């Protein structure tokens, strides 16, 4: 029983590491633009599908696919930014959200047109058994993912507080009009932030695909929903919060799945999101991106 609990926690942390990575990218966009990008996951899916296509056609190395995945996600992200976020910079946040959903539909259909199978194999990151700790086991991929999430969180923090670009990003978050008047090219900063987030998303997508050794069109919706949930649990707009939120979501899901089943797992996750939004809105909305 106690081993089950610990093993579940391990599994949860492993899953949570991917949620954390997804949430970091999501949070970066939300924190800076105050916009929800529903196409975040589908753009990652485009990256993963591009890599899968390359892998099927050229049998390339799994680590070479990392570059393809990131490139694909960034290109798809650029398309999303140009069509959904740049035009609505001054306009409604909801319009951007709906537009990003419209592109989600495009991505999903485009992917199934080119690669119609429901499931494709993705090469694994490592061959071999999970690491064993007595009766417990943990997959090495989970450790890689967790360290990536922490490293990216740390690097982003450094970037925000130590670099010229970071200064510009914080200025844009703080007072967009003043940032323009200070000579900061705000549209460019926003685009770069968006692309950075897409790149992080691509890395997350590659890690997830090579851990689960498969890609499906569901990956898009899954990434968006999990990233969104983890971001909210972490307090909407805080980078360390996103990592903690992702891990918390993973552990919560692992335990609720074990005790109550897969449906209850999703139900509890959404319930948490609903409760957080409905009853602590002030806490949720006052956090800044730091």
């Amino acid at each position, binding site marked *: 029983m106690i081993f089950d609990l610990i093993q579940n926690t391990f599994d949860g942390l492993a899953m949570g590491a991917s949620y954390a990575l997804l949430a970091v990218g999501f949070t970066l966009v939300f924190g800076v633009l105050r916009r929800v990008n529903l196409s975040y996951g589908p753009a990652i899916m485009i990256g993963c599908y591009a890599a899968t296509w390359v892998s099927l056609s050229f049998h390339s190395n799994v680590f070479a696919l990392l570059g393809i995945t990131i490139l694909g996600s960034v290109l798809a992200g650029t398309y999303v930014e140009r069509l959904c976020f740049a035009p609505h910079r001054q306009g409604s946040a909801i319009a951007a959200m709906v537009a990003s959903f419209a592109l989600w539909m495009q991505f999903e*259909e485009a992917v*199934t*047109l080119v690669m119609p199978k*429901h499931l494709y194999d993705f090469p694994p990151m490592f061959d071999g058994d999970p690491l064993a700790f007595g009766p417990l086991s943990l997959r090495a991929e989970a450790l890689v993912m967790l360290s990536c999430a922490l490293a990216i969180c740390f690097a982003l923090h450094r970037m925000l507080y130590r670099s010229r670009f970071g200064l510009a990003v914080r200025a844009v978050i703080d007072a967009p009009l003043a940032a323009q008047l200070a000579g900061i090219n705000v549209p460019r900063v926003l685009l770069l932030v968006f692309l950075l987030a897409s790149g992080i998303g691509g890395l997350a997508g590659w890690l997830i695909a090579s851990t689960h050794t*498969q890609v*499906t*069109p*569901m990956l898009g919706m*899954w990434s968006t929903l999990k990233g969104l949930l983890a971001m909210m649990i972490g307090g909407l707009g805080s980078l360390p919060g996103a990592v903690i939120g992702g891990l918390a979501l993973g552990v919560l899901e692992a335990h609720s799945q074990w005790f109550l089943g*897969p449906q209850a797992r999703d139900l509890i996750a959404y319930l948490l999101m609903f409760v957080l939004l409905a009853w602590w809105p002030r806490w949720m909305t006052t956090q800044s991106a730091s």
Partner: protein
Amino acid sequence: MAKAALGLILFFTALPLLAQKVEGELACRLTKTDFIYDCMIRISRGGLPLPGAAVTVGADMPSMPMAHNVKPVKATPGKTPGEYAAKLDLEMLGEWAVKLRLRGPVNDQLILLYEFDEKGAQPVRRGDRLPRK
């Protein structure tokens, strides 16, 4: 009078038949063209083949009802009674809710959930919603 009696008798003998469940089954094969399937439909009532029905076959995507449907086609009776043949032109692989509209001996509609892949179609078995694990 006799006609009415006959009608009544027919009506009551037909009742148990009407109450019997109509069932459908699908066997599909992907043709050379993408997403076009040759399908054989078997329809039975109370376990017995049901010939002579006018069958129209359509399909819906479960996660986008109403908006994503396939133009229905009329099925033609096959060689064996209760068998009907139709060509389905789907838009993509994956799960479809095949809709059989029956007229003639029965007026009914059957929904069959099938997963279409690059060979043919299998009935959907539902488990966990997410493809992982």
